[in-house]
Structure formats: C-alpha cells, structure tokens
C-alpha cells in the first residue's frame, strides 16, 4: 500500500526516521507545525533502532537497553500530529526546498519551509584486497539482517576492523547464538597513545562502562587478534580464506563469511546534491556539512541533525534533532518556541552526549593502509576501477574526483560514490600531495537514489509540456 503526501506544502519536512529524525519530527509536530516525515525503511528506527516496532527479537538483553530507547522516541512521534510515510525514498532536494520522493513506485513533489535532514551515517569503505568477493560484507549489513529477521551467521565467520559498532555487533551475534570464529582488531597501536589525553572525558561518558563490558563479554567467547596491520580476503567466486598480519606474523584462516567494519561516516549524498557546503574533517576523516550551532547548513532552510551532521552517536543525534526542530519552530512559530526546552539546555545536553567522542574518534581512527588501497585492489565497485587505475589517471592529469570521472567513470555508477568516494579523495590526495579538502569530492546529482524511467514518465507535467506531447 502506498500513501502519497496529503499536502503539497509543509512547514517542516524531516528526512530519515532514525534517532535524530524521530526527535525532530516529534518536536516540530508537537509545536503545531505541519510536519512530514519521509523515511526509506519499512518502519521507524533508522539503523540504530532498526525494526524497533517489528523486530522478532523479543529478549531485551539480546539487543541491549540502548536499542529499546528507540521505542520511546517512536511513541513520542506517534503521539504527535506528524504525517509519517515509510518506504519513501527522497531522490531530489534542491535549494528551493523542493523535494521529490518516490513512494510505492510513484513520485510525488512536496515543498517545505524548512527541511531537517536526518539521513544518518554510512559505513566507511574498507577497500582491502578481495573486499568485493561474495562472502565479504559490511558489519552494518549483518546487523540489519540480525535486527530485522534475527538472522545470524552460522558458517565460519571472521569479523575484522575496529570501532564501537564492531563490538556491539559481535555481542549481538553471540547473544543470538551466532558463530564468530575470530575477531581481527585493526586498531593502530599508536592510536592508544594518541587517544590518551582525551581519556578522562571518555571515562566519564556513558559509553565507557557499556563499551568495556561489551568488549569483555565478547573476548570471553571469541579469539581476538589485536594489532592487525594487513588484511586480505581471497576466494574464487566465494570467500575461502582471510589472511592477516599481526605482530609481523602472517596467518591465513579458512572462512565463509568476513564482516568488515571500520566506523561510520556521514551520509552526505542528499545534502551535497542540494548544494550544502561540506568540509573535510581531519579527525573523523570524512566530509561533514558546515553547520551553525542550531544545525543550519549553508543552504537557507536546510538543517542537518544526527550522524549526517558529523558522527556523534545516537544520544547526540536525538539532541541534535531537537535542536534543529526547535530552531525551525523559532523561525516559523516564535510564540510556541517559548514552551519548548530552552536552547541553552539542549546545547548542554548535546555537550554531555558528545563527551568522549574525541577519544573514540582518535582511538578508532582507521589506519592509512585500510583506507588508501594500492595496486589491483578495487576502489570503485560499480565500474571496477582499481587503485592503480586511479593513480594512472592522476599521472596523465586527473586532478580530482570529478575529473577522474572522465577518465575512469568512478562514482558514475548507481551508488554515486557511496562506496568509493572517500577512498578516491584520499587516494588522489596522497598521490598529489594535497589535502583531501583541496582535492574535493564528487559533485553529487539527483536522483540521489535511482528511479525507474517509467516512474519519472508518470510524473504530472506542466500544462505546456502536456500540450507539446499531445501535439507531437
């Protein structure tokens, strides 16, 4: 069943029903603004609270208490007057705040006075040799299956990488009776020293105790190899083995499934396509939108909340969602804003939620060899472009990702750079001895997600266009 938006114009359109979007839409609708929530998934929750209303996992301990916080956010949204549409893929947003959205195979156009983007994060590319072999997948994809369908791996499974989500996934798989043969921890040894100055803030953050106990829980059941400095997957048409180097020693182990994860980065495609200015974040090693303290971007009327605004985690996302929505209420219904929690209080909440983030970012900063591949390792999966291909193009004059398109078609496939963009920027930056900021990123274009020709053809046209076609 598909439901088109009830109106053509809204005060606020929120895109994405993860923690930030849920909080933003509930706040905005609660303040009486006409609010439309558009979300791509079949139900609310985003990735962190995926399937919060429908998961078959009923034992609350298995997914953890943090997961079930999502249920309260969903409750708050449902109690508001927000119009919520799921399976709604926003494929275009421009600086006039015109939004094109695909719902059930038909496209609709709506316009907003304010747009709050809560499009969350993507997993950082992990371009090791063999990462495109079937049987290698991202930890996030595995977690999606686990939350939506209670599916866990039962073959020989290796998890490789680093970061809080890696440990969370490992714990969730084990609690649901899944199999993990080995965890290969790629956290750089030097990162521990670099992170030390930030440790105090982390010790007082809510993540600390939870993170530590989760790691302890996993380590009790699975062999963990730390200090992994090289990693490769191999197999002919299907993953057969994973080889790695740790402490200068190479080892190869048979495997049916390799789950890769080295952190998440903002999902910037829709914001960039709308013309929002982004800058390279040297700590998080990704592009982040340039925002003011209320989450407002360089495009008037577009605010960004949640991990799409820079990785901050679920708690920070909720607060950022409230801040962005409060700013929208201040702009559109100032009298009502006085009844909402004060901005100063929200910003204090945000500071608290972000405590310890620098420690995590520093500790889990992925090592160069796992971000910047070489030789025959694939960079762009859509067009099968290798690291060597990119370097060859640089040698004959490709100066940045957009010029590279002309040489190798990188980023021109259906994913529009989601799987290769960061790799290409960093690889070209290294090759040309420039900063990623100087090298830049792909210019992204609508449709941000592909739509069928038939769907576009069915869009209502302007009167003049209809006449032209009839005449022809």
């Amino acid at each position, binding site marked *: 069943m598909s439901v088109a938006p009830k109106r053509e114009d809204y005060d606020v359109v929120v895109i994405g029903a993860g923690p930030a979007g849920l909080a933003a839409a509930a706040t905005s609708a609660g303040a009486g603004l006409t609010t439309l929530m558009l979300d791509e998934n079949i139900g609310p929750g985003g990735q962190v609270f995926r399937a919060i209303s429908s998961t078959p996992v009923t034992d609350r301990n298995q997914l953890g208490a943090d997961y079930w916080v999502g249920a309260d956010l969903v409750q708050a949204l449902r109690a508001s007057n927000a119009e919520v549409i799921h399976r709604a893929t926003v494929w275009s947003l421009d600086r006039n705040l015109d939004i094109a959205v695909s719902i059930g195979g038909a496209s609709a156009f709506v316009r907003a006075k304010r747009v709050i983007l809560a499009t969350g994060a993507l997993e950082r590319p992990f371009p090791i040799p063999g990462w495109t072999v079937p049987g290698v997948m991202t930890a996030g994809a595995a977690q999606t299956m686990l939350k939506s369908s209670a599916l866990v791996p039962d073959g020989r499974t290796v998890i490789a990488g680093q970061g809080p989500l890696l440990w969370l996934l490992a714990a969730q798989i084990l609690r649901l009776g899944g199999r993990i043969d080995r965890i290969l921890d790629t956290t750089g040894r030097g990162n521990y020293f670099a992170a030390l100055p930030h440790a105090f803030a982390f010790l007082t953050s809510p993540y600390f105790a939870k993170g530590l106990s989760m790691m302890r829980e996993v380590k009790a059941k699975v062999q963990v190899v730390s200090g992994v400095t090289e990693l490769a997957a191999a197999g002919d048409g299907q993953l057969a083995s994973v080889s790695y180097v740790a402490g200068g020693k190479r080892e190869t182990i048979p495997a049916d499934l390799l789950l890769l994860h080295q952190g998440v980065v903002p999902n910037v495609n829709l914001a960039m396509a709308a013309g929002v200015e982004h800058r390279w974040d040297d700590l998080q090693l990704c592009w982040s939108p340039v925002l003011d303290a209320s989450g407002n971007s360089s495009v008037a009327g577009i605010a960004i909340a949640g991990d799409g605004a820079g990785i901050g985690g679920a708690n920070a996302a909720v607060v950022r969602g409230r801040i962005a929505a409060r700013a929208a209420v201040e702009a559109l219904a100032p009298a009502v804003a006085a009844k909402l929690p004060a901005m100063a209080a929200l910003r204090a909440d945000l500071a608290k939620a972000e405590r310890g983030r620098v420690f995590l970012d520093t500790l889990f900063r992925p090592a160069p060899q796992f971000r910047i591949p070489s030789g025959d390792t694939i960079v762009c999966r859509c067009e099968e472009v290798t690291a060597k291909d990119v370097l060859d193009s640089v040698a004959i004059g490709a100066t940045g990702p957009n010029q590279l398109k002309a040489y190798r078609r990188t980023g021109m496939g259906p994913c529009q750079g989601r799987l290769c963009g960061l790799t290409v920027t960093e690889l070209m930056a290294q090759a040309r001895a420039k900063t990623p900021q100087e090298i830049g990123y792909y210019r992204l274009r609508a449709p941000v997600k592909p739509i069928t020709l038939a769907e576009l053809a*069915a869009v209502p046209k302007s009167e003049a*266009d209809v006449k032209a076609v009839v005449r022809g």
Partner: protein
Amino acid sequence: MTVNVDAIVIGGGIHGCSTTLHLCLAGLKPVLIEKDYAGRHASGVNAGGVRQLMRHIPEIPLSIRSMGIWEKINDLLDDDCSFESYGQVLVAENEEELAACRARVAELNALGFTHEELIDAAELRRLVPAVAETCPGGVVSRRDGAANPAQTTTAFRRKAAQLGAAVREGVAASNIRYSDGLWHVDAGTETFAAPVLVNAAGAWAGRIAADLGEPVPVETVAPMLMITSRVPHFIDPVVILRGRKLSFKQFKNGTVLIGGGHLATPYQDRNETVLDWKSLATSAQTVFELFPVMRSATIVRAWAGIEAKMKDDIPVFGPSSRHRGLYHQFGFSLHGFQLGPGAGAVMAELIVNGGTQTRIGDLGIDRFHPSTL
C-alpha cells in the same frame, strides 16, 4: 610581475582549449586561464554529440571543417576521446514532419551541402530498429557520432600544455585592459600581457564582451541531461526527434543518455543549477512511448551544464569590431561541442594569418555592432 606571452585565452572549455592547442601548433606561446578547471561547465558535461545534422546554415562550413578534425582526433591529441561514428538520425514522427525534412535537405543541396540525407521508413527502421512503427522517415548525417566531452576537453588541454601552452586553472581572469599595444590580464598573483586576447569564456563571455564595450544579446542557460542504468544494446546512432525536445544516445557500456534541451535554472555565480524534474519527466515520457525497450531502465543521474545562448542561436566567432587583437569565441547556444576542434583551428588561422578559408562571415560580433575598427 608581468609575463609576456603571444596570446591570452580566457576560458578552458573545448573552444578555449582547442584554440590554445592550435595556437601552439602554429608556433605561438599562449596562456590559457580557466577559473575552475578545463571542462568544468558545458564542455565537460554536455551530451557529447558530434553532429553536423540540422545545423544553422551560417555555421555549417565550420561544422564540416570540424568534422574532418574529429575523424582524425587521435592523431591530433593522442587520445581517441571515445569518438565513435554511427551517424545521427533525425526522426520524423508523421508526414508533416517528413515534409519539413524533405524541404530542409533540398535547401542544403541547393547550397551545395550534401551531408544530410533524406531517409524513408525502411532505412529509418534499419538504422534505428527500436523506433515506433508509425514514424515515416527522417534525415541522417552518416559521418556524425558522439564523443566523451570531459575526456575530449581534457585531452585538448593536456596536448596544449605538452606543446608549451601555460595553463592556469582555478584562477579567474580579471582586470582585463589594453595598453601600449598589449592586452593585460590578471590571473591570481600573476599578470599576463599579449598582443592577442581570445574571449572563450562560455557563459561568462558575454560579461567580458560587454565590459569591453561590445554587449550582445546573450543569456545563460543550463540544458538538462539524464543517464540511465545499463540496458541491452539496442541502438547505434544518436537519435533526435524533429517535433519534440529529445535526443538519445546509447553508450558501449549500455547506459543511455537522454537530452534534448529542456532547461534547468542556472545559478551562474555559484556554479550551480537547479533541475526542473517536470520537464525531465516529459523527456522520460517521450522515451517511454517511443522506445518500449527502455521502460524498465532506471534513471541514475541528471545534471545540467552552464553555457551561453545567443538570441539568434548562432555563435559569436571572429575578431572584435572595436578592439585590435581581441577575438570572440562564445555563445555556441547548446551546440558548440562538435564545433570545438574546427573553431580552434580557424581561430588560430584568423590570429596568425589574419584570415581563413572557412566561411565564417555570418558569425561575427559585427552582426550586432557596426565595425569601428
């Protein structure tokens, strides 16, 4: 400090890059100044049509000159530019449109041009098997084809640099002035001086011309294009429709480029465009009706390039009517890509020899201004 060169070319589109290269080939030492990078705007993101078909008569000689260069593009640039020549076909959807095609071909023949050829329904079907049964014929230009626009523009720039041109990308030409017989142009921290200045600044060229006292009726436009996912091979030539705004090209990798001249809103000073999806939907509907094979394809990306369109739809090409040493090469009005190689060659002849054998007289800026030279 001022750097003396033989010519200053403003604008790193295919025209500026081609003129720069041809000046190098003639033994001059030019500088090319581009505010973004070569091929950033229309030259790098157009449909790549290499088309003599359906051109305005005043620019046909330049187009034919260009076609000869396209066919040997690899010899010139050491780069094949992904140029391929399967012809371009204009489809008439009814007898009325076919009659207009017949008249057009007769007119060209009377002027001595033979590159456009009237075709009947059978030949149309042979060239474009997927076209709707009801179409009665059309026009073909068999030597036409398509190339990769960004690859081509980049190849011109690269070859020009190899032959000694100074290339300055990422700096805007500013403070253009004439003194002591030389044009002076600032580019970042540098100043260049030369007896020759070529205004090939695309959508930005009209301002340069106006600042130098030669305003022309030009507007900035942004024609939209969209590309599909890969579909099974079904078409070789580029197809354009006589009666509707649609052009159509399938690449070797199976993707299909859909264009035709529907316009986005340009925001020139921000290097941005805002697409008009309702117009693109019209293009999608036309494709849907005429090419059933395309119905399950997905649209992967849509975009628009910023360029200059003249009120009379033909370019401004040739010497200034007011200033010695100034040459204009802009306003190609949505059909400049194919002209790039030839226009660069002819412009170099005008600059170096003071004349050319290619007939370009109707393209001069003096059609708007009586000459004061």
